[in-house]
């Protein structure tokens, strides 16, 4: 026999469509907002997360990637001579001005790294090799920003901070959280492109620890040796940067609030329709009680309805979300849905639907089975 829950749910097709719309709407809203949040968050720390470094030495007080302050390159040698450190490199991250061929200017973030190492360089190369950046005046940009930066062809020459720059390669999918694109270049070039930085200075020092080294211990040792700096592990610097952009600037809060609203709207719509369905079937629930059904039996019917709404709503909602995410990838916004989030969404949808049925369950508890004898 098809279960009572199933029949009650599908009997009124219009009402079921409304329930489903509520669930789907909530799911898509939450996925898009949370996905934006995750997308933004990972974008803010993208370069750090791909840096291959273990430790970051930053000028005291620096909290996030985009706002480094110059420190003396002498600190590089102090870092290098610390036991447990096998490699250390200077690293520049600096705002600058990019002059398009048509004369217009764009803000960019110049990233200067050592092309001989595997630390801090570009990834996802579609054209060119990292080694190409060893030549003077060469830069990599991301395909996504070609239009913004007025780049029409490989080998094109532009000006950064008044210095010549030649495009020798492209990356894909390296977006910056701000509107300023990242420009990858060698440390040497970056000294010219990045403003207000002297030859004997660097913004960051990236270090690689010996395999199996205790990073916490290394951090302490570095702090003791190198003055006026903060030491982060890569994970810490990543988190600190994410925290700054998402929470300190409020950019993330707005997105999270929107996600929360999606959740609230979802719960309310689902609660309302499940409640309406329950009210429709009140007499039957009363009859069930009179027949001797314990309350638990009726709760199960209602919760089953909620779970079925959740499962169907989840399937449809996720399908729509997937389409939205696909479309978003072509535009500027990066909505991301890692699989744990997809799983968590299922849990959230279930919780939302079951939570929404609590009002109905409360109502059913109060049904007096004696009602069945009333006309």
């Amino acid at each position, binding site marked *: 026999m098809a279960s009572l829950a199933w029949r009650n749910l599908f*009997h009124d097709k219009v009402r079921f469509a409304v329930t489903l719309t509520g669930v789907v709407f909530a799911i898509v809203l939450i996925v898009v907002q949370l996905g934006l949040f995750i997308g933004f968050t990972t974008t803010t720390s993208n370069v750090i997360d791909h840096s291959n470094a273990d430790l970051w030495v930053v000028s005291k007080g620096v909290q996030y990637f985009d706002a480094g302050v110059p420190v003396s390159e002498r600190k590089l040698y102090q870092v290098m001579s610390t036991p447990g450190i096998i490699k250390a490199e200077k690293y520049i991250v600096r705002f600058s001005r990019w002059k398009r061929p048509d004369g217009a200017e764009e803000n960019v973030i110049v990233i200067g790294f050592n092309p001989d190492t595997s630390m801090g360089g570009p990834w996802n190369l579609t054209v060119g090799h990292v080694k190409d950046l060893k030549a003077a005046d060469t830069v990599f940009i991301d395909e996504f920003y070609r239009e913004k930066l007025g780049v029409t062809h490989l080998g094109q020459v532009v000006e950064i901070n008044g210095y010549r720059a030649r495009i020798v390669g492209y990356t894909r999918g390296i977006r910056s959280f701000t509107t300023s694109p990242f420009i990858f270049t060698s440390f040497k070039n970056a000294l010219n492109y990045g403003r207000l930085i002297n030859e004997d200075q660097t913004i960051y020092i990236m270090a690689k620890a010996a395999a199996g080294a205790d990073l916490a211990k290394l951090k302490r040792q570095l702090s003791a040796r190198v003055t006026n700096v903060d030491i982060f592990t890569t994970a810490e610097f990543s988190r600190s940067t994410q925290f700054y952009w998402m929470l300190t600037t409020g950019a993330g809060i707005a997105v999270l609030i929107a996600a929360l609203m999606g959740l609230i709207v979802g719960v309310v719509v689902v609660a309302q329709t499940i409640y309406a369905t329950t009210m429709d079937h009140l007499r039957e629930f009363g009859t069930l009680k009179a027949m001797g059904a314990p309350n638990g039996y009726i709760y199960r019917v209602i919760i089953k309805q909620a779970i079925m709404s959740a499962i169907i709503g989840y399937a449809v909602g996720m399908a729509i979300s997937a389409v939205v995410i696909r479309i978003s990838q072509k535009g500027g916004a990066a909505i991301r849905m890692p699989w744990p989030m997809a799983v968590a969404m299922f849990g959230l949808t279930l919780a939302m639907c079951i939570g929404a049925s609590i009002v109905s369950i409360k109502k059913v508890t109060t049904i007096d089975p004696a009602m069945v*004898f009333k006309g």
Partner: protein
Amino acid sequence: MTTAIAVKDVTKTYASGAAAVQALAGVTMAVSHGEVALLMGPSGSGKTTLLSIMGCILRPTSGFVQVCGRDVSGLSEAKLPAVRLQHIGFIFQGFNLFPTLTAGENVELSLDLKGVRAGLAKSRSRELLDAVGLTKKYDSFPADLSGGEKQRVAIARALAGDPQVILADEPTAALDSHSGRTVMEILRTLARQRDRAVVLVTHDNRLLEFADRIIRIEDGKIMPSPIPYEATISGADAPDYSSINPTPHG
């Protein structure tokens, strides 16, 4: 004949706001296995209240209720559903079928409540619908059935759990006389052949011929001797209906 259901000194007072209504003022009665008892009386006399108390849907304000030899007066609210489930089948004036389920599924639901597994419930439900002459209506939804058919589905459902006691509140009031007779015959056969106790509330004198006993209730009290309806109106001497031997109806 053994007693299937009995009440003793039962009172019921509804506390509705400031005014309390005494619906039952000390009722004692019993119905035996194999007996069809009609509960009759004017509107507001307490028939439904008495039926609800016998059916363990309502708890009396005072007094005792015994179902199949078990005293249920002392049971907590939470334990009453199990008594209903095990011993009592209900039939309602308004049928109270589940509109989203087919006739067959309505019966199966009752079996599901009792924990009968799906396969067995299906065949049982077919047998029960066969027994009330609705073999062909197994897959019909209540909306597509006549009143009489609906009530027969409701009877099949009430019998599904094989209860010892059937309680019906005006089961024929919403039916035409032919359907009403069919329903009554099914209930009488049930009492006769399967030794079940059937208690039904009615206003309909045409059902008198199906009764083994008539219990009259007025102002929450059982009248000392069963008096037929006509007798109260005409004031004539009451024939003794308790000795009536109902003729089988063809």
